[in-house]
């Protein structure tokens, strides 16, 4: 195996390639693996399991919302004392909402999405043998796994899991006796999140270093696939924001267990009396939390947008429209995400001047977001579209990004947010723009890179069916919630039948719950397709989607070190699709070609022809163009 041409940077990784004939033990290969491809599968499968649990929780509390006065025997069978007489306990309802949010935001759409695809694609698409530190990468997964176990273990606690919402605002989360879930359940939640932050930082540092330091020859930054740009910026966001959440969590732990008053002040607890804590500020927690919380939205969304960019370009058989604009948009979104956290706090008594500043910077995010949306649509326009399941999910993301993004403009407006805050309008907004869009990006990535992960193809028919059912049910679930929110229906309430004013929404709640059950059932199709295809799917070819990026130049059978020989050199950008000067409608980045083409601006030969055939002076062309404009001359 010829790897001696590599520089010192890759020496360590080449050792893997040299020693690949040593078959690692089962434990080293499948459990404590340092191979980025195996770690990506570990992230994915753990993320899928967590996703299923999070979804099941949502179905349980949706049943409560739809039929609050009914009893269901199966609930008691499933939840035991938490659903006595077939009705979910109110505290447990809050716990389900809390853990559903936590799981979906952190464990599925952060670790499950970014962990899976950053691990899989960064080394493969930049041309590296593995991550900068494979050991840190392995630790990243195991911290994540441990964190998942700790979080789920809170269901075995007598007082139940954390119940103060996925944002765990104090004082509810800071006082151990505030509600049942505020006890050990919240302690476990905090421990789980601290482990999660460690995992995210270990992973994120690795991703940044690998992208910036370990690219193959020719892989300049302007030739990076948009997936890599997205993963890089996601990692930067995590690096800068997760430590702040760690700080917020530590203060909370100190308030809970060490008698400090960082967040607590002037509290009277029913049955206990006035507490001695004073001087603390629960609003300070919100500032610290949302300093992570808002970038977190983009930590979730950017990888999905990156995946969508690649999938849409590949399956539309066109260069992505406006590569540079896409990169600049990602950068702008990343920068802006750090200065908009206050829009989550308009109703905290914030100074109106400050609120106005936060409002304007929030609304500015609509600009790069719109650029991305238009570029997706322009890429699709007149494309030779292949409606693979991955492509369907990518287009679905664009749809959710538009419909959910538009309502963000409402909520970013301080005057409107005061009315809409904590209503179902907010639930509808973030489930569309962040939840559904990101999960569709994740599905798109799974369907697209499944052949690279497992060497087999997923069933396309089942994939399409999965898409249509999920797409329809997501809209049926979340679209009506906008109207509920506009009518003032508050989120997190346990039993609307107790409030006559909201009685007219009961039928809508039933409709939403039935749609949610349909959406949940659709995921069984995915699970069947996914796990069956791992073992019995049609064997994949090396480049099944005729894609340009260099991960498809690796053998179908995985090697620790990725390429059997030297790492390929890259000669062009990732989106050279449908070039008129080529017989094939794709041009892989690593394929030696006929000179350097001009990126994204059409074939160089065509431009050259115009330039060389033009014998007229520039001034003549300039003035005659007006004649053409007013049709005084025929072209």
């Amino acid at each position: 195996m010829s790897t001696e041409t590599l520089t010192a940077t890759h020496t360590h990784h080449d050792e893997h390639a040299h020693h690949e004939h040593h078959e690692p033990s089962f434990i080293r290969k499948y459990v404590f693996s340092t191979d980025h491809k195996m770690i990506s599968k570990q992230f994915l499968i753990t993320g899928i399991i967590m996703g299923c649990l999070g979804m099941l929780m949502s179905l349980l509390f949706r049943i409560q919302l739809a039929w609050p006065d009914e009893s269901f025997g199966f609930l008691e069978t499933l939840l035991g004392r938490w659903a006595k007489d077939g009705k979910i306990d109110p505290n447990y309802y809050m716990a389900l909402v809390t853990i559903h949010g936590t799981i979906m935001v952190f464990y599925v759409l952060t670790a499950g999405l970014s962990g899976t695809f950053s691990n899989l694609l960064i080394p493969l698409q930049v041309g590296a043998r593995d991550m900068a530190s494979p050991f840190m990468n392995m630790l990243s997964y195991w911290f994540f796994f441990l964190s998942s176990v700790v979080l789920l273990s809170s269901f075995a606690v007598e007082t139940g899991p954390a119940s103060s919402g996925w944002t765990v605002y104090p004082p509810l989360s800071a006082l151990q006796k505030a509600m049942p879930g505020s006890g050990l359940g919240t302690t476990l939640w905090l421990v789980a999140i601290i482990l999660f932050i460690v995992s995210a930082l270990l992973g994120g540092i690795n991703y940044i270093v690998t992208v910036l330091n370990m690219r193959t020859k020719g892989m300049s930054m302007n030739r990076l696939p948009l997936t890599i740009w997205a993963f890089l910026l996601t990692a930067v966001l995590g690096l800068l924001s997760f430590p702040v959440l760690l700080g917020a969590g530590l203060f909370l732990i100190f308030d809970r267990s060490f008698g400090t008053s960082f967040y607590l002040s002037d509290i009277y607890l029913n049955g206990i009396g006035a507490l001695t804590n004073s001087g603390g500020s629960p609003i300070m927690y919100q500032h610290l939390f949302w300093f992570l919380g808002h970038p977190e939205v983009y930590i979730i969304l950017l990888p999905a947008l990156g995946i969508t960019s690649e999938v849409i370009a590949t399956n539309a058989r066109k260069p992505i429209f406006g590569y540079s604009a896409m990169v600049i948009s990602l950068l702008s979104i990343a920068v802006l995400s750090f200065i908009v956290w206050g829009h989550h706090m308009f109703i905290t008594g914030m100074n109106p001047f400050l609120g106005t500043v936060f409002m304007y910077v929030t609304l500015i995010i609509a600009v790069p977001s719109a650029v991305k949306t238009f570029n997706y649509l322009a890429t699709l326009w007149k494309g030779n579209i292949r409606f693979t399941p991955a492509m369907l999910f990518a287009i679905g993301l664009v749809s959710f990004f538009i419909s959910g993004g538009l309502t963000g403009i409402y909520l970013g407006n301080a005057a409107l947010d005061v009315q809409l805050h904590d209503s179902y309008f907010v639930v509808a907004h973030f489930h569309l723009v962040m939840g559904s869009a990101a999960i569709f990006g994740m599905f798109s990535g799974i369907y697209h890179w499944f052949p690279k992960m497992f060497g087999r193809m997923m069933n396309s028919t089942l994939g399409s069916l999965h898409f249509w059912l999920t797409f329809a049910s997501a809209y049926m679930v979340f679209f009506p919630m906008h109207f509920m929110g506009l009518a003032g229906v508050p989120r997190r309430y346990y039993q609307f039948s107790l409030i006559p004013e909201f009685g007219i929404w009961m039928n809508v709640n039933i409709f939403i719950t039935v749609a949610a059950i349909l959406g949940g059932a659709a995921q069984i199709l995915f699970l069947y397709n996914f796990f069956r295809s791992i073992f019995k799917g049609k064997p994949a070819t090396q480049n099944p989607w005729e894609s340009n990026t260099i991960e498809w130049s690796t053998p179908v059978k995985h090697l620790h070190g990725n390429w059997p020989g030297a790492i390929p050199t890259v000669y062009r950008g990732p989106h050279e699709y449908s070039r008129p000067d080529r017989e094939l409608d794709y041009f892989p980045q690593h394929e030696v070609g006929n000179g350097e083409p001009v990126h994204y601006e059409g074939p160089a030969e065509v431009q050259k022809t115009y330039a060389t055939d033009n014998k007229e002076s520039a001034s003549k062309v300039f003035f005659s163009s007006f004649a053409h404009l007013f049709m005084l001359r025929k072209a």
Partner: protein
Amino acid sequence: MSTSTVNNTPKEFSPKTFIIWLFIVASTMLFLAFCSAYFVHQGDGVRNNAWLKFDLPFEFWISAGIVIVSSIFMQMAYRAALRDDIYKVPSLLTVTLICGIAFCISQYYGWLNLMDRGLFFSNKEPAEISASFVYVISAAHFAHIIGGLVLLTVGIIRASRLQIHKKNMVFINICKTYWHFLGILWILLLLFLYFA
């Protein structure tokens, strides 16, 4: 497929060195969060006459002196390795480690000093929250120092095995970068607590 050479990343800025820089960025964000919270609290506290001003323990200043001395020894170890004066490296790193331990002891006495004055981590009066902040900030830095001591210990073992020399500077470069960061960080935190 081409089989040409890969990557022209400069050797002296290895991925591992880059990792420690990114870790420093993450740590800086954590301390920025603490300091921002301190500012917010202080503003509220002063307005409500609930912010206790007190002198920092003099041991904290001694710690600052120790950390400066330790950084000098760290730099000497680095330069010795750079000159291939490899037999000096273990001893210089050991002196740095001893300085690090002395720093920890000094910090510990600093906390005892605070407690002797009735300033505890948990607070009964709202004004005492300022003491809680001092404990949190100094303890978070202390935790980072413990990590640095582990790193130095590994460095001493490697240097004793003659694995740190002119052509293998990555590890000592990491040690140096991190240790200097800790020193600068403590001085900045101390100045922040003093002037804020």
